[in-house]
C-alpha cells in the first residue's frame, strides 16, 4: 500500500493552515512542506488526529544549520502505519535563540528527540516538560552541531583544565 501522494497531503495542510504554510516543495527528493515555527505543533496535531492521514509515528525530529542564510531548519518526519505514507514538515527558526512549539505532548517520542535538538543545536521548544541537555555532559558549553562549532580547538571544560 503506497498511501496518499504528497500533493494530496500538502493540499490538505494548505487548505487547513493557509497562511502558516510558507512553502510546498515537491521537487525535492524528499518532498516537504515548510511551515512557520509557531505552527509546528498545530500541524502535528492535525497530522496525528485527522483520520484520513493518521500519522501515528514521528520518526525523528532534527535540525540543519544554515549559517549563510542565518537560520536553522527544523525537520519533522512522520510516518503512518495505517496508510504507510511518509510526510516531512520543515520550519525555520533563528540561529541564536530559536524557538518552536514542542510536540512532546502529542508524540511521546519527541520528548527525547527535542532534547537532542536543544542539546546539539540550541533550539528551544516551548511547552517541553523537561528541556535539558541529553547527550553532552552537564556543564557543557556550546551546541556541537552548529557549523561554527569547531571540534578541533574545543576545550570541553575550560575551568577544569590546568593553566598553561
Amino acid at each position: 500500500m503506497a498511501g496518499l501522494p504528497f500533493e494530496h497531503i500538502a493540499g490538505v495542510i494548505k487548505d487547513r493552515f493557509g497562511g502558516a504554510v510558507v512553502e510546498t516543495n515537491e521537487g525535492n527528493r524528499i518532498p516537504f512542506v515548510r511551515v512557520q515555527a509557531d505552527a509546528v505543533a498545530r500541524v502535528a496535531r492535525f497530522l496525528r488526529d485527522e483520520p484520513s492521514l493518521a500519522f501515528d509515528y514521528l520518526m525523528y525530529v532534527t535540525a540543519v544549520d544554515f549559517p549563510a542564510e542565518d537560520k536553522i531548519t527544523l525537520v519533522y518526519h512522520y510516518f503512518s502505519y495505517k496508510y504507510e505514507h511518509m510526510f516531512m514538515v520543515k520550519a525555520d527558526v533563528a540561529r541564536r535563540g530559536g524557538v518552536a512549539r514542542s510536540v512532546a505532548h502529542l508524540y511521546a517520542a519527541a520528548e527525547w528527540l527535542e532534547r537532542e535538538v536543544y542539546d546539539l543545536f540550541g533550539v528551544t521548544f516551548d511547552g517541553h516538560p523537561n528541556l535539558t541537555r541529553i547527550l553532552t555532559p552537564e556543564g557543557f558549553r556550546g551546541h556541537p552541531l552548529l557549523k561554527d562549532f569547531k571540534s578541533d580547538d574545543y576545550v570541553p571544560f575550560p575551568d577544569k583544565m590546568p593553566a598553561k
Partner: protein
Amino acid sequence: MATDTAIHTEEFQVNMGPQHPSTHGVFRMVLTLDGERVVECEPHIGFLHRSMEKMAENRLYIQFLPMADRIDYLSSMFCSVAHCEAVEQLMEIEVPPRAKYLRTMFMELNRIASHCIFFGIFALDLGAVTPFLYGFRERELTMDLLEMTSGQRLTFNYVRFGGVAADLPESFFPAVEKFVKVFPARVTDYERILNENEIFLARTKGVGVVAAPRAVNYGWTGPNLRASGVDFDLRQNMPYEAYGELGYKPVVLSRGDCYERYLARLLEMRASHALIKKCVEGLPEGPTQKEKVSKFPKVPAGEVYVRVESPRGDYGLHLVSDGTDKPYRYKLRTPSFNNLSMIRELLRGVYLADIVPIFGSLDVILPDVDR
C-alpha cells in the same frame, strides 16, 4: 501499596549504572524506591556520545564508511548499508544484483549474530549462564562466515559505494551450507532451554507490558514493536536490497510483554535463517561492484532518507548533501534511542527485580543510543 498507614515508609534513591553490568554498556538510572517498588526513574544517557554526526560532517564519505560500522557495533552491516544506500541514491547508482544479494545475506547473518547475543545476555541478566554459552557458540559460526569474506569479525567495513568489497571465497560455500544445516536445531536448543523454564517465565511473562498505540507513540520499532502486535517490517512493507525478490513475512506477536519481546527475536532467527538459505540458493552471477564508481565521490546536492530494518528496529539515515565530498548533515535515527525513551514510563510502579528483565528485553545497545 501500604495498607496500614501506621507503618512509616520512606522513599530512597538508588543510583543504577553507568557501570552496572546489566545496563549493557553505560546507561545510568536514578531510581526512587519505596521498598521494593520503583516510584520514579530518571534515565541518563550520553556516556558513549562520540558525536558521530559531527564527525561525519568533517570527513569524506569514504572516510566515514568504517566509522559508520561503529555506530551500532553489533549490527554494523546495517549501518554501512544505510550509509552506502544514501550515497547511491543521491548519485543514482544501481547496485549489481549479486552485490544486493550479498548485502542481504550478510545483513541477515549479522542479525542472527546480534540476536544470539541478545539471547545469551538476556538470559545472563536473569541469572542463567548456560544460554550465554549457547548463544555465543552460534554467533561464532556467523562471525566465521563474515570474517572469511570481509576479514573482520565485528565491524566489517564490507559494503562499498555501488557494491561490496569482495566476492565470496571458495571456502564460504561449504561453511554456509554447514551453518544452514545445523542452525535450526540450535534454535530448538534455545527454545528448549528457556521457553518453558519456570523461573524465566515467572520473571518475564506479563512483565513490562506495552500496548501497541503506546509503543507507536514512543516511536518503538523492530521486534519490540512487533511483539506488541504491529504488523510492520521494512523488509516486507518497504523492501530494499534483495528483500523484494526474496519475500519476507514478519514475526508478529500480540501481548507485548518481556517474554514476547524475547520470543519475537528467537522466531526472527528462524526467519533470518530461511532468508539466508534463499540468498545462497538464488545468488545471481555477475559483478559485485558497479564499474566506474569513484571511491571519493562528490555527491550531488540533495536530501535523502534511507530506512533499514536493523535487529533493533527502524534504522534511518537522513543525509543532506551540498554537492561536496563531505556530508552537510548526517542525521542518524537510531532505533535504540527511541526504544529506550520509554524507560521512565515502563519502570514506574514495577518491582525492583523487574528492572533488569524489562531493560534487557528492549535489546538496547548504548552506542546506538548515544551515537
